């Protein structure tokens, strides 16, 4: 009986030690994502509660801006996530392009809507912060414009995915779009340095000590962690949905449903 071991869901390579390639296949990742998602959701709630507590009850009032600065606790983490998720999405898409692994394209597709939502949140909260501090909802400043382009890149990725019927071909086209779009990420990040912008400089720098109060920084980091955990949880649930949609005809999925 020369039965391929993967059908039983227990590849023989697992006996020789942890084999990470194992997790690159949809049938092994499907149950793993299902088991991990609730834990990431719990972590998101815990970090979120702690972050909101620091944001509203620990962090002091800003001397220049008053209470309106408290928008920063979601604006900056959402902007970080919008860029970070794009890079992770492009990484998975590129991996799929290079190694023809099915799961990579599914992961990229699972991250795109969440990245788009965080880009929207960054723009929305930025607008609500800009009105009282700059006197305008929107300005065609380099930082704001490049972040808007990021939103359109996410939209382009999602539209392209939806427009091509064959998911594997759609993955390849989307991967190309995602990789070309990566050039926009350093443009967003450095826009406040390269151009004279109305938007303030980086809130947190890797090279300088934080200029803001430590409690403000901690609040931002906690909410960034919350958004991060949330993104992983949602992406895992979405990748499970995508696997169920795409692997309809494969035999292993019968055992799952």
């Amino acid at each position, binding site marked *: 009986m020369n039965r391929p071991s993967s059908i039983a869901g227990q590849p023989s390579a697992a006996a020789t030690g942890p084999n990470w390639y194992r997790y690159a296949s949809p049938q092994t990742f499907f149950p793993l994502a299902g088991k991990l998602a609730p834990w990431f959701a719990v972590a998101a709630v815990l970090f979120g509660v702690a972050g909101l507590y620091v944001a509203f009850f620990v962090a002091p009032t800003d001397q220049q801006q*008053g209470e309106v600065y408290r928008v920063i606790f979601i604006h900056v983490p*959402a902007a970080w996530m919008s860029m970070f998720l794009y890079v992770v999405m492009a990484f998975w898409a590129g991996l799929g392009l290079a190694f023809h692994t099915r799961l990579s394209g599914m992961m990229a597709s699972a991250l795109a*809507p969440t990245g788009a939502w965080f880009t929207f*949140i960054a723009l929305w909260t930025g607008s609500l*912060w800009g009105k*009282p501090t700059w006197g305008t909802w929107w300005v065609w400043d380099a930082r704001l414009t490049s972040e808007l382009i990021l939103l359109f890149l996410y939209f382009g990725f999602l539209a392209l995915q939806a427009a091509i019927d064959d998911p594997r071909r759609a993955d390849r086209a989307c991967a190309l779009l995602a990789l070309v779009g990566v050039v926009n990420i350093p443009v967003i990040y450095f826009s406040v340095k390269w151009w004279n912008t109305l938007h303030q400089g980086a809130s947190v720098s890797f090279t300088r000590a934080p200029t803001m109060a430590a409690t403000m920084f901690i609040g931002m980091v906690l909410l960034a962690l919350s958004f991060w955990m949330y993104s992983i949880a*949602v992406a895992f649930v*979405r990748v*499970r949905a995508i696997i169920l949609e795409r692997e309809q005809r494969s035999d292993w999925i019968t055992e799952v449903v």
Partner: protein
Amino acid sequence: MSWGSFNEFAAMGGYGLYVWGSYAVTAIVLAAELVLVRRRKRVAHQHLLRLRGASIGSSE
């Protein structure tokens, strides 16, 4: 803590609309995405169940 009362907290020093407008929309977006993604998974699961049910029925 900078708040003497709940009203002071809600007013956010006169910037309540901007602060709460930011937090409320973020909460709504994240909650809605979670609901939608779980529904998408449930629909895909049910579709698959129907598909398998139909194929078993036709083969026997």
